[in-house]
């Protein structure tokens, strides 16, 4: 068959549609030609239907809140087990995928892959409004608007999250549907009997252009590229060695010491009333080191903010602000906040050498706002996949900017 040929080297496989491949099970015609076989297997079919209806094993695609309610449904009070429904954490042993929770752009290809690993016949339940439509995350850059853009859904259970009883009701509706489908009451998804159709996928492929005519091939290719490159791009790169500052003895708790340090050693006397003081970018690592020695042992906040051109409120040198927050440990805990202002393209020195916890916090701000931290040992994206275009928390990044092909 066409599939067995090796693709030419150096060329990407064309987008394929397996449903177009001619395939028939070798025993199919023989079985059809046996006289009376269909009558003979009818009782078997009834047994199969009975078993199938009462042993719907769940594969929990539990990503967020609804997953907790799914656990609660499987636990003591509601007890899904009495319906013959048990939770199997592997797709190969499950019949029903319960998509419980928000599916993000980064997660959707994984969900699709897990769905493809489930054996036929299989069903899908969209549990909760995120899985149904994306809920209020629907228009945002990183969430897909409902799991039915990726795979076919049999039962929708509304709610945010649905109660465990709601999930149970959904499963009972699914049982009815399975029964009806086996009895011919519902149109089956395939023309051939499901048991004999061994290779044809029940749904069009995720990357199949025939799925949505408004999506161009180039967009599909881009999306394919985006998901395929995801993990390989995330490999750590070599960076400068990190030195860890030794632990200093804790200073006694004094109120106003932060302001005193700022005024005395860093020359910052102007303290704005409704915002943290501004510290020179060149000296802020020194300030952090000094405060750490003074008892501020935890870095609690690294938050960058973007002030775009059009608001006009800020000068060119203040397009980005990075706010840092430190906290003292123990009785009468205090927080010290300061700001560093940056022009576009400027970078601020990393705090990884002072606080190891700055590592992920600075990566997150780099990811979402594009602020670069000079000297960071491993400055990669944290939340979004490696090849994401743009920095979504910038003010000029549209809130509903499409990245995924289904947008």
């Amino acid at each position, binding site marked *: 068959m066409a599939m067995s040929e090796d693709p030419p080297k150096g060329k990407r496989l064309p987008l394929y549609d397996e449903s177009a491949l001619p395939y028939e099970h070798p025993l199919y015609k023989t079985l059809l030609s046996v006289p009376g076989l269909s009558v003979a297997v009818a009782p078997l079919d009834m047994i199969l239907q009975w078993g199938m209806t009462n042993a719907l094993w769940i594969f929990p695609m539990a990503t967020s809140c609804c*997953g907790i309610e799914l656990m609660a449904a499987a636990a003591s*009070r509601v007890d899904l087990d009495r319906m013959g429904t048990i939770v199997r954490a592997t797709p190969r042993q499950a019949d029903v995928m319960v998509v419980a929770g928000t599916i993000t752009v980064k997660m959707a290809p994984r969900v699709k892959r897990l769905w493809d690993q489930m054996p036929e016949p299989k069903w899908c339940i969209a549990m909760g409004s995120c899985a149904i439509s994306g809920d209020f995350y629907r228009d945002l850059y990183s969430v897909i608007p409902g799991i039915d853009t990726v795979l076919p859904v049999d039962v929708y259970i509304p709610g945010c999250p649905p109660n465990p009883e709601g999930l149970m009701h959904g499963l009972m509706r699914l049982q009815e549907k399975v029964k009806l489908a086996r009895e011919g009451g519902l149109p089956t998804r395939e023309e051939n009997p499901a048991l004999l159709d061994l290779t044809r996928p029940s749904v069009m492929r995720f990357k199949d252009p025939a799925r949505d005519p408004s999506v161009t091939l180039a967009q599909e290719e881009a999306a394919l590229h985006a998901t395929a490159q995801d993990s390989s791009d995330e490999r750590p790169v070599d960076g400068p060695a*990190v030195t860890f500052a030794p632990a200093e003895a804790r200073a006694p708790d004094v109120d106003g010491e932060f302001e005193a340090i700022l005024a005395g050693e860093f020359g910052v006397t102007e303290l704005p009333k409704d*915002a943290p003081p501004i510290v020179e970018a060149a000296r802020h690592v020194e300030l952090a080191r000094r405060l750490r020695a003074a008892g501020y042992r*935890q870095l609690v906040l690294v938050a960058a903010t973007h002030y775009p051109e059009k608001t006009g409120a800020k000068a060119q040198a203040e397009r980005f602000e990075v706010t840092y927050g430190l906290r003292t440990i123990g009785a009468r805990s205090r927080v010290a906040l300061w700001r560093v202002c940056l022009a576009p393209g400027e970078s601020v020195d990393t705090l990884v050498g002072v606080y190891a916890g700055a*590592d992920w916090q600075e990566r997150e701000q780099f990811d979402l706002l594009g602020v670069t931290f000079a000297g960071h040992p491993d400055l990669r994206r944290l939340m979004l996949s490696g090849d994401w275009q743009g920095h979504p928390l910038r003010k000029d990044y549209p809130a509903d900017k499409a990245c995924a092909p289904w947008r």
Partner: protein
Amino acid sequence: MEMTEATLTMQSAKRGRVDPHRSMRAYDADADLMLLHFGPQHPSTHGVFRMDLHLDGEIIVKATPYVGYLHRAVEKLCERLTYVQQTPVVDKNDYVSPMTNEQALTMAFEKLLGVEVPRRARWMRTLFAELQRVASHLLWLGTFALDLGGALGGGSTLFLHCFRERELILDLFEEVTGARFHYNTHLIGGNRHDLPAGFAAKVHSALAIVESRIAEYEVLSLNNGIFQMRSRGVGVLDGELALELGVTGPNLRASGVDHDLRRDAPYGAYDELAVNVVTAQGGDCYARTQVRFGELRESIRLARAAIDGMPEGPICGHKPIRQPGQAKATSGQVYVGIETPRGELGTFVIGGGDTPTCPYRLKIRPPSLHALSALPYILPGATVSDAVAILGSLDPIMGEADR
């Protein structure tokens, strides 16, 4: 003795801190290391979390965590919503303790907008937060028992039991707010729902049941030989490193650091209720379990004190802030951190911008993300089976870590 990568890693983990940024090229090329992908869909990842584990035999020599599989753009969403619309959004961040999420956000907004909260509302929030802490720690205990697998009677015994008790707490919340899960009961400047009649008796009877059962579970788990073998000395997190990484909450206190924002930077009714801070010294999975058991008892005590001492009076201002026009800020930058069941949940808000009814920037500091950032330091030297126990003992919630 042959120095394999596994023995080298175990020795260096004993000697001092592991360098999480060490390049793979620095490892022995002939060591035959195996790369194991763990997650993002795995029953023990507590949501969608992925790690790349480099193994020498059974020993982890390098762990690289990846987050962001549940990145729901909450911060971008909050910039588009008005101040009064945001409690339902942050409910979904840490979906195991929505009450404390709402509390952190509304407290930040109240500080930014300069809104006073009546005393009864502060006490009610404290009651809810402590009840929520009980529910959250119970859920953690049940799932941690699942993570440890066969250690506790096939694994799911404690899970089923803990969920039974958790339902009692959720019933209380359902009676107050009408919702089992995402309550939306905090308003800026007060609460939305008052306590129903006869609520105190119900709280007391539920807490009595929970308290007696917790004593059973403590004996079942902490005194269990298999449980101790699976958790003692596993995933030791040094207190110094925990502080530097920003690890907070029970994970920090299990490393011997006496720090709890309820006592050290009191908010709500905690300045009137004396909070005993639970600490343990081991820094391992066992110590984290000990601390959470201690906190369960302490939270039950605090919840009782809160419901007994509940003051009379209004639960919100004369004119509740429910309309967008009532909450406006033209400037200001505030940071508020509170102690949730997982640690310090901070909210940083910048007011002003084009629309005074919306925050210009909102940054949430999730405790789970900081707990997860300790993994590359504490996993090397452990075995693969310990990886699940260590991850579970940190109690991460991915909805909050990824937002």
